[in-house]
């Protein structure tokens, strides 16, 4: 039994506390960024730009906020791929449902009265 040799544990160049301090700075920057984006969104809807342009920008900003919170605040960036898959599956189904319903309703040959009769 005494001949058994264990591989040395990997020594991190940064301590756990240093890593958490780095995260603190990331969180502060992200929070400021998210607050600024919310302000931009609010101003944007009152500006006299093309509706499609505003819609696209709002969608992009919203998507950025969504992904940023998941990646950094929810630690998905630092966690295992399995967790991303677990959440991604639900997200994919939710998005798929929305896109499918949206495209179904957008078709001109759909009898909306028959659908809404229920």
């Amino acid at each position, binding site marked *: 039994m005494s001949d058994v040799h264990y591989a040395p544990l990997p020594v991190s160049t940064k301590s756990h506390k240093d890593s*958490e301090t780095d995260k603190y700075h990331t969180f502060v920057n992200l929070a400021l960024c998210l607050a600024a984006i919310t302000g931009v969104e609010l101003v944007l809807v009152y500006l006299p730009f093309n509706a499609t342009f505003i819609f696209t920008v709002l969608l992009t900003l919203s998507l950025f906020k969504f992904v940023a919170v998941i990646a950094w605040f929810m630690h998905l960036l630092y966690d295992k791929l399995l967790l991303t898959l677990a959440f991604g599956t639900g997200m994919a189904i939710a998005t798929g449902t929305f896109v499918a319903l949206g495209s179904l309703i957008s078709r001109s040959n759909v009898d909306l009265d028959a659908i809404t009769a229920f």
Partner: protein
Amino acid sequence: MSDTATAHHDDGHLSLNNDNKKLLMWLFLGSDCMFFGTLISTHLIYRKIYPESFDPTSLFSLELTSFSTFILLMSSFLMALAVSAMHKGELKSFRRNVLGVIFFGLIFLGCQVYEFAHFVHEGLTLSTNTFGSTFYMMTGTHGVHVAIGVFWLICMYFYSHTGKMDAHESAVDVEIAGLYWHFVDIVWIVIFTAVYLIEFI
């Protein structure tokens, strides 16, 4: 050797449990995504089918909703700090940040109650039209999620005073509560854009 083996086994066992807890939470959040996806889709599709049924721009207060969004984003920031503090074993910092999250959560709920009361006063109820039904259903469900989150964090705050909470064991529990809270935040990010801002374009 046996001590080492036990320690290794214990660590492995603990790690497996913690991983399972996190995986379960992420699976739950994935399913909740589908739930909210359906509610938001229903609202948007009924808006498309009956665009003339109701004009919410006269009723919505973008300033109030933006303030609520800001509050929820800042609460997410504090929650991230609370999780980080727990990982560092700083219980006092954890408590301070969690109290901040609870406070911001209550402000958000207060804003939502005020908004609902204002809408009802203006004549928009759950049964007024399809807009009222889908809007209250969607934002109300989100509000219930926020209320559950606040209750969860209040329990966690008081639990931290019992002396049973140690940094190593409880860090994952705090992280799981944090995941739930951040999820509530990302759902609101979508609702804010897809339900409120879109109406003003």
